[in-house]
């Protein structure tokens, strides 16, 4: 018995040793739908970095709902870079624990968002409920799938896109609140992350329409359960989603990885990085790459969060903070 216990501990220690890594590592803490994007991008950048510096680089990935991931970094998950769904979740890194400076978003071009996306609808083949635009989502017999805006960045974009549409069309925030409230009544379940919502719609067959990142919808078309079972519907107007990226200063300074972390993010803006983003269904910033992929990304009028909501800080406070509009209009299980 004693010998057995000793053997167990010895093998445990051995296994612990096996977990240690020798070469440089980066941890990219990202949101849900970027899994495929960063798998491809990380491989490309590791090769590039090897050529530039001769160093072997291992990039580790963590994915989850954007708000949840931000929370984890605040609680001590040592991310060298974060690539999250919206600026507010990175602002939170400044507010709690001062992990990044207040002006982090000005450090890289285009509001630190190397790629953009928007919110579109994914419907079942043949569009049986005839969903064409935002107004069709509040009809009584339509099941809408969207994740929880408290934890998911994508869900916040979805919510604000619907709000912005109603505000423009029906004039004013009161009408918009009524519209979004009606829409939320059609949501049978709120998943914590965008990917969870997609699987609910695609693999488990729940709901008639999925409110999704355009990149997520395109991916579901390409890879989801059965190909050719879904169609994308582009609404008359939507929101310009800018998922931002930044180096986490406190972590890279502690770990001595600032140089490689900054090079990693810059590479996202390079033609190679932009090409990988476009291939993975994100709208590239680079004009040449955008022209090449023009057929993938339909032209649609997009409003920005600054125009309609006065920036993320305001939007967050009004809509998603505790006691905000979302808490007022969302009643779980109400139908």
């Amino acid at each position, binding site marked *: *018995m004693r010998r057995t216990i000793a053997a167990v501990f010895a093998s*445990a220690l051995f296994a612990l040793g096996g977990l240690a890594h020798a070469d440089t590592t980066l941890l990219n803490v990202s949101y849900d739908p970027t899994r495929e994007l960063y798998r491809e991008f990380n491989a490309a950048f590791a090769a590039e970095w090897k050529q530039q510096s001769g160093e072997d680089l291992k990039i580790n990935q963590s*994915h989850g709902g954007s708000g949840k991931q931000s929370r984890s970094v605040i*609680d*001590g*998950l040592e991310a060298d870079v974060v690539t999250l769904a919206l600026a507010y979740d990175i602002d939170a890194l400044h507010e*709690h*624990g001062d992990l990044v400076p207040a002006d982090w978003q000005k450090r890289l071009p285009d509001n630190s968002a190397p790629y953009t996306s928007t919110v579109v609808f994914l419907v079942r083949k043949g569009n049986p409920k005839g969903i064409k635009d935002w107004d069709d989502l509040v009809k009584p017999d339509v099941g809408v799938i969207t994740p929880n805006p408290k934890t998911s960045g994508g869900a916040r974009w979805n919510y604000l896109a619907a709000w912005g549409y109603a505000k423009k069309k029906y004039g004013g925030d009161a009408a918009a609140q009524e519209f979004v409230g009606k829409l939320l009544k059609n949501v049978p379940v709120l998943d914590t992350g965008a990917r969870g919502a997609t699987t609910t719609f695609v*693999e488990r067959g729940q709901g008639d329409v999925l409110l999704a990142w355009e990149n997520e919808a395109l991916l579901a078309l390409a890879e989801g*359960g059965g190909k050719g079972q879904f169609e994308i519907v582009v609404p008359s107007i939507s929101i310009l989603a800018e998922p931002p990226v930044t180096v986490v200063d406190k972590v890279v300074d502690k770990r001595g990885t600032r140089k490689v972390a900054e090079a990693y993010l810059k590479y996202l803006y390079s033609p190679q990085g932009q090409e990988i983003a476009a291939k993975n269904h994100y709208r590239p910033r680079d004009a040449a790459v955008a022209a090449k992929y023009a057929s993938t990304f339909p032209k649609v009028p997009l409003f920005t969060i600054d125009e309609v909501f006065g920036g993320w800080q305001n939007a967050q406070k009004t809509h998603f903070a505790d006691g905000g509009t979302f808490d007022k209009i969302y009643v779980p299980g109400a139908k």
Partner: protein
Amino acid sequence: MSAHLPRKSSVALRDPRWLRWSLLAIALAFVALFLVLPLLAVFGYAFEKGLDVWRAAVVDEEARAAIRLTLLVAAIAVPLNTVFGVAAAWLVTRYSFRGKGLLVSLIDLPFAVSPVIAGLIYVLLFGKQGWLGPWLADHDVKIIFAVPGIVLATTFVTFPFVARELIPLMQAQGGDEERAAITLGASGWSMFWRVTLPKIGWGLLYGVILCNARAIGEFGAVSVVSGHIRGLTNTMPLHIEVLYNEYQRTAAFAVASLLALFALLTLVLKQIVGWRMRRIAATEPDA
């Protein structure tokens, strides 16, 4: 104990035949629907694209890291809980002291608390914003979002299994043999190894097996403290979720089939141990 009931007067055996058969049919249908069918589905999906795809999913670098981590966590959490379980059961059954009832209830706490809460407790304690967080960060000790946090959360969740198994057993056995050993001059340590351990051996093994099964399969608590870094802090259950969410259904179920195999193995071991325990109980004269 049911073994002591006089068998012939058992009411169940006097029920009409139709009732017995329909109860049996309901039970079997229930088992088939809720246990056998999902298990078959796991293996069905795992092998739907053939053995090579299954093997590729299991030997994938991230999958291997997840398997290693899961085994490592179990290798630490299970011995810890075994030592604790024996100590606690000893304390509870051999001594009487104020607050014993409270201690017994506290041992059961992890059964009552949702695993998510269990994970959050550790984040609040050891996270950067938590009570001990700043001190840990200054001393460069990583607990949350690293292997120690996963071990802690798993240990918490699997805490009661061994103690729960031993307490009734040791209560039933009483302490006469130990007292005899001490009277005859045995040291406390040799009494434990030569008298107590052989007596409780099979019960202990039973508890350890259950503890291990839960340690390997734990999802909720581990999910909260893991940080989900693939290849580093994803255990097998977390890795399965990742794969499933990446539209790699076959790979997800391939790894799931490994977990199911562990579970089946556990079941077989549990049966063998339970059978041995009953046999020992039957051959021993009642105290």
